[in-house]
């Protein structure tokens, strides 16, 4: 029994490793075959040939690409992701700094998306073709198709600039910013650990607008998917049978049908969460939220190869982790998957 469990765990680990290796290889090769030379991008306008050669050597770009890749793997195995060319910090430190910001925002976003999106989707399905259904679908469509950048600016303009109900961009008021000692990197948690409730509420108030925006975005997707999944269940014969037997409609929808909707819905939610954890570059830009999306984008534009690779590893790991978790949850939700 234990041996078979160990075998299962080993299998999962092996699959994670191969996936990561593949991901690293692809990213590495693409980054090395970009048409622009990262050295020319770094050295400035007056660099001499000797200076260019020196920097090329410093970056290890003078070796053949396969050798560079092996070096890189060796460093990763030692936990060394290299030093960012733009921040002059170890990439690992940078990632530890930016990822919690994205994690915090994405988690609040997905929670809002699930808590609002699933009931709305079910409601729309039950009231199919009624006015309520149309309204919910329209709201979803708007959320799914309007540029998040524009929504963000509008949100700030209305709730921050005009009405003054909500604070401006950033994770805290500027005055508070340097007073938080980072422990987890998650503001709402760190401020509580520090026992400073004013700062905690300040952090919460800064989360409301960007999290609502991301929440709206995932709500739009989740409610649409819930609606169509629910509709396909409500057409099934077991629903008809239950209705004929006089089972209350509420029980049919939430217990019988929902049980079957749950499994595919879990994938939808997991994918949405994964997308949010990749970091929403536009939301992070508008709200001056220094998360991983902004970090990777800047790294790409700055030809900061170590940072691009490091960011890719984190995003890859997040996806793998979410997928593994989803698989485990399947086993609980769907008896056939056991």
């Amino acid at each position: 029994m234990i041996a078979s469990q160990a075998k299962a765990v080993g299998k999962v680990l092996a699959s994670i490793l191969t996936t990561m290796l593949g991901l690293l290889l692809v990213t590495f090769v693409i980054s090395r075959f970009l048409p622009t030379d990262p050295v020319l991008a770094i050295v400035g306008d007056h660099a001499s040939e000797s200076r260019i050669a020196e920097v090329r050597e410093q970056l290890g770009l003078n070796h053949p690409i396969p050798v560079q890749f092996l070096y890189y793997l060796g460093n990763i195995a030692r936990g060394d992701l290299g030093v960012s060319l733009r921040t002059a910090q170890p990439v690992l430190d940078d990632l530890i700094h930016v990822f919690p910001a994205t994690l915090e925002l994405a988690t609040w976003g997905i929670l809002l998306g699930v808590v609002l999106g699933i009931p709305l989707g079910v409601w729309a399905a039950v009231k199919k073709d009624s006015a309520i259904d149309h309204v919910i679908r329209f709201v979803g469509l708007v959320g799914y198709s309007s540029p998040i950048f524009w929504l963000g600016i509008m949100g700030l303009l209305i709730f921050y600039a005009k009405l003054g109900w909500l604070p401006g961009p950033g994770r805290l008021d500027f005055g508070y910013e340097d007073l938080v000692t980072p422990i987890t990197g998650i503001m709402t948690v760190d401020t509580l650990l520090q026992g400073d409730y004013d700062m905690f509420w300040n952090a919460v108030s800064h989360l409301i607008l960007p999290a609502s925006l991301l929440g709206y975005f995932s709500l739009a997707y989740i409610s649409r998917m819930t609606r169509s999944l629910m509709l396909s269940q409500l057409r099934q014969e077991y629903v008809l049978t239950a209705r004929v037997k006089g089972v209350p409609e509420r029980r049919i929808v939430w217990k019988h049908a929902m049980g079957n909707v749950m499994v595919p819905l879990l994938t939808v939610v997991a994918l949405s969460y994964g997308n949010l954890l990749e970091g929403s570059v536009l939301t992070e830009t508008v709200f001056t939220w220094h998360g991983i999306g902004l970090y990777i984008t800047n790294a790409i534009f700055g030809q900061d190869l170590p940072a691009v690779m490091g960011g890719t590893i984190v995003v890859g790991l997040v996806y793998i982790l979410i997928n593994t978790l989803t698989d485990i949850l399947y086993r609980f939700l769907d008896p056939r998957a056991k």
Partner: protein
Amino acid sequence: MKPFMRSAVAALGLTVGAFAFGAGLAQAATPKDTLVMAYVIDDIISLDPADIYEFTSSEYMANTYDRLVMINPQKTSELKFAAAESYTVSDDGKTYDFKIRPGIKFHSGNDMTAEDAAFSLIRFVKINGNPAFIMNQFGLTKDNVDKMVRVKDPMTLEIETDAAYSPSFFLNCLSYTSVVVDKKLVMSHEKDGDMGNAWMKTNEAGSGPFSLKAYKPNESLVLDANPDYWDGPAKVKHVLIKNVTESATQQLLVQKGDVDIARNLNGDQLKAVKGDGNIKFVDSPKATLWYMGLNTKNQYLGNVDARQAMKYLVDYDGLQKTQFAGIGIKHQTFLPDGQLGADNETPFTYDLAKAKELLKKAGFPNGFDVTIDVTNKSEGRELAASLQNSMAKAGVNLIIRLADNKTTLTKYRASEHDIYLGQWGSDYQDPHSNADGYLNSPLAKRNQWVSPERAAAVTAARDEKDSAKRAQMYMDLQKQALQDSPYIIMFQQVETAAVRKNVDGFIIGPTFDLNLYRYVVKN
């Protein structure tokens, strides 16, 4: 179906409640002793003066370090002695002695001596970072700098150059490179013979009006006033610079009063805040020019008449009134206004007939197709669109290629472009910077327009000791370049900051190392 409705309404109610709750937490104005600024600072790659070559980092350097000499921020045609109180030149014009100002203390408490000044220059050359070429021009190299830069006595620094240069050229270059770092502090952080370079990338060892309190790359920079500054302490106690990359967000922040200064508003946003009674503008022309570099390797652009024709196909006046209103001044010569010998004449206007005539003379009466590489940012995009439109009227068809800044720039550096549209800023406040750049290297090389005669003329102007004669030589070079160069220079950049009404004394200079915070007062 009531329960669904109930849960949905409850959830919606929660969200609305959360918004309303936020109402109680709206912000107050910025603290009175702190200058808060929204600024795009993600171009910083190092805080070490031996590496610093970017706009924002040179501004940081100017506020945290002292230089031997600097450009006088109040009168930019003059020099101001700072860490040095005076200098002398030897009779052969090759050796300079600088007297270090007594009584200057570093932020660490150490006293500044000639030892620190010599170490700083030697370190600057030896680390061989991006700005090191400025000192290489005087024959100071990694191998000889130990001998060329000497401590004559505890308060006198001696610098020897390989030839006699014009003193104004030498001092103008020093105004950027003569940053004095705290030798004891820096060397205590040395690792593997790096002269403290790794540590200095994110730390500070200066004596300037502000010290570095905290630096979070890509996020924020916090400075504290130095109460013992030799030239009088700054009026504000702290400066908080927030990296706000979205300019629309900067606009909201400054209008709301959550920042005192917004640094990166575009033309439209400046127009939008103009009517705001709480905001005023602080601006200055920068030593940065908007121009097109035409690669003469291209069969059409190699023809001088075709190039001249294109100079008549830019709607300078129209652009000045629209896109460049508030952020640029029409300018067509390679020396920006404010530098020695700058010739501010603008002979070119939009003249379709003249352009067609020149194209005919060039042998391309029907025009031609060329690509133009542009950084994908609103300014460049809009300018390229306007150029495409006005040039098309004479049959010159611009094919716009948008990419991020590093990609276009790298392509340009490798000379793989037809036309490059972008900006060029002087490296230091001396006409040689641009004369050399445009007529010799690097821009002339990139555009395949190098000639030994022009190189010799640039050197002669650089070495002329009589300032009036030197200015005239630059005038002549500019007039010639208007006739034949592969550059279509269009605008001199104006840097404009949106500043809250209660903030006075913020100085924007012609270069970023002359943007100063120490005179800022908040009323």
